[in-house]
């Protein structure tokens, strides 16, 4: 049982870490601000989300699990807002550079 859960944790956390890597590569390599933004949101939402998911497979108290999910939701909310605000200003012809 615990072996299966560990395997799930390893799978989810590794995938999450991969999304962080992909997001960073995208941020560094993509040519324009909007596609970089696209890469960022993937890393942000999915990367952290998968890490949280992976940790939830480990035995946690209910309250601790709730806190983990709250951390993710808070980051998601802040990320979405900032992304939208950046997208508005980084649009071609918007206030930039």
């Amino acid at each position, binding site marked *: 049982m615990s072996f299966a859960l560990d395997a799930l944790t390893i799978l989810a956390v590794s995938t999450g870490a991969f999304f962080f890597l992909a997001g960073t590569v995208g941020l560094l390599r993509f040519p324009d601000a909007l596609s970089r933004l696209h890469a960022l949101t993937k890393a942000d939402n999915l990367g952290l989300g998968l890490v949280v998911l992976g940790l939830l497979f480990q035995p946690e108290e209910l309250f601790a699990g709730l806190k983990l999910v709250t951390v993710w939701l*808070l980051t998601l909310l*802040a990320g979405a807002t900032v992304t939208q605000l950046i997208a508005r200003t980084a649009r071609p012809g918007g206030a930039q550079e």
Partner: protein
Amino acid sequence: MTDRPLALDIGLAFLVLGVAVWTIAARDTFAAVVGFVAFGLLLTLVWARLAAPDVAPTEAAIGSGVTGGLLLGASTRLHGTQTPAPGEKPGAILRLAAAALCTVVSAGLAAIVLLLPEPAPTLAPQAATNISATGLGNPVTAVLMAYRAIDTLLETVVLLLALVGVWSLAPDRVWGGFPGPRHHADPDGLLPFMAQLLVPVGLLVGIYIFWVGSVAPGGEFQGATILAAMWVLAMMAGLVDAPAVSRRWLRLLLVAGPAVFFAIGLAGFAMAGAFLAYPEAYAKLLIVTIEVPVTLSIATMLALLVAGPPERALR
């Protein structure tokens, strides 16, 4: 200890130094401030690795978060003034001399770190034996609120004095007025929406962190900073306006914490024979009685320190 945490620690230490070098070396001030925020974030992880779970959230909240917000605001306002005049740049000789001096300072400190006495002196056993007298479960909160309580009392006074200093920088025509610009809520914007969702959750978390501080890592400074950040966030989103600094309720709120702290400290003479001494049976009750107003006062002070001196006159 296995090898891997050491590899992680070495990597983390180099990241901290790298980001610090960048904060100093970046040509653009805004980039330097971003570097500083990253520096605070990495330091938070360092504190977690140094088994200091009480310091980590303080660094995250105050060292990186609130200080970062303050400096970001300042760097935006000073935009365009950040290129040094030709005569201002220090010459090569001065730079070399400064580099030499700083290397000596660092080397001296490094030598001290390497030559620290073995076994390390520690006050942890004393803290452990005395913790039961406070009724608290968190040793750091016990240190802050019991046997180093005078530090904590004076610290709230330092914050208050800094705020008085900031307010006294207001020009005459806006004396006692509203701090900072008025932010208007953009009706179709996401920011007010986000703030409406985030602020209640944040207030709840702030109160939780404050409350849990008596038994586990957390406490009044960490909790107060979260409360302050949420207040400033609501101001930036245009949900609420900053209060005029001459409001009586505001001033009462600011002095309530230090005043209650001081009064209970004086009562210590009658109850236990010394300033800030608590009778053992009531220690926890008294500490909580101090902590609640102190948390509210610190939250108000921090928020107003970020908001800055008054900029708009009373109508």
